[in-house]
């Protein structure tokens, strides 16, 4: 087996202690994914595993064996940015940029969740699908990603713009 990382097969490490985050950053030098708290509380390390947003700091790399991982490097590039990346630039969705890769990976998955009708704690009608993403809904659904710079207003604006394009 192997871990598919942004489309390339990588052998799972022999040492089970290696987190997916450390595999990405220290061994594969995919440093877009950031280390914040290393304990699940900040979201800076968010990546997609089989398309779902997860925390790479609390995932052991061996747990990802046989699965496919997408990091910010796999979502878009400077030449061909992901729509969320373009929207973050347009709306000043960052200051230092440290939380940004995690925010964008989380937002990409979040938009798909909402489309599929995944409710949030705030959703009044738990059975509505797709969910209409209000500002409060986006804030609730993105609460796993902290931003110490306080760029949240721009982050939410950027996500709402892409959500509207999705819906259109």
């Amino acid at each position: 087996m192997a871990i598919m990382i942004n489309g390339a097969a990588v052998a799972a490490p022999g040492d089970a202690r290696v987190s997916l985050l450390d595999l990405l950053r220290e061994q594969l030098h995919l440093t877009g994914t950031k280390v914040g708290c290393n304990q699940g509380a900040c979201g800076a390390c968010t990546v997609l595993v089989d398309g779902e947003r997860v925390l790479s700091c609390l995932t052991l790399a061996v747990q990802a064996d046989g699965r496919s991982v997408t990091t910010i490097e796999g979502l878009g590039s400077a030449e061909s940015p992901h729509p969320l990346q373009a929207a973050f630039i347009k709306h000043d969705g960052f200051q230092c940029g440290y939380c940004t890769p995690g925010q964008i990976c989380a937002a990409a998955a979040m938009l798909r969740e909402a489309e599929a009708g995944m409710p949030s704690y705030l959703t009044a009608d738990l059975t509505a699908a797709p969910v209409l993403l209000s500002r409060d809904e986006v804030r609730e659904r993105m609460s796993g990603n902290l931003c110490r710079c306080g760029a949240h207003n721009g982050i939410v604006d950027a996500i709402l713009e892409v959500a509207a394009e999705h819906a259109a």
Partner: protein
Amino acid sequence: MIPVGYVRASSLGAIPPMLAGDGHRLLGGGTNLVDLMRKGVERPSLLIDVTALPATIEEAADGGLVIGAAARNSAVAAHPLVRVRYPILSRAILSGASAQIRNMATVAGNLMQRTRCVYFNDVAGSRCNKRAPGSGCDAIGGFNRYHAILGASSACIATHPSDMCVALAALDARIRVDGPGGARTIPIGEFHRLPGDTPEIETALAPGEVIVAVEVPASPFAGRSTYRKVRDRASFAFALVSVAAGLTLDKERIADIRIAFGGVAPKPWRALQAEALLRGGPATSAAFEAAAAAELAHAEPLAGNAFKRELAKRSLSAILAELAGVSR
């Protein structure tokens, strides 16, 4: 972290012999165990990945649900049957942790998650009877804003952190387990234990036993049920107080009612006294307040968490008024 082995269990039958070794532990999503390993609280020698256990969510013969142990928290919250029939469970899960963590966390892992007491997590600097039995409890005279006001002991005052389990307590869920002694079913009320003199023993799970599934019985009241969580920030924080409640009305009277609190006790706290006072009685805000006061009369607040008694009373009165559709 100390070196650790890793294997994947391909079937339920394969697990008991694997679990027999010293320090052999089950691994769900890892959101609690990996964190505690990194902090040195947990020091397993072998991790047995059980995420290939059944993760299905199926309707039971009695109209209830059977949820596989490896079902992810997000999958349970999103399941159509859960959303329609058990809003209390959907909302409780959705109020917990973050979307990323809910995608990773399994139902069994959520049931087995350990306390978030900061002293429990601080291996180098704090005494903790749960982590090191007999060493003392630094929370009792320390920062205990998040600690218990009901069901605690002089050995440990930690709260159970789960939101999902509070809803399961209100729903009278049963935990299906399997192990060396055979298969059995444990009512949720007996699954988590109060600390007494042995805070290190947290559940009724015997050594070598594995959680296989959670049975949620058919519940007439669950259609009119919800979960409310009060915390220090609006999202992604553990509960100071939470309430899971459901009721059925017969005209203005309460035909049946279920109430459980989170954030106030070492286990999900089923408010049996308040339920008994309200069942058959009028659905009025005065009755709700009286029942809440009676349930919280036994609370033993600490220096840092006296506010929880009033917060729990008000939260319960408010949620019942909302469910019954009476103004306060």
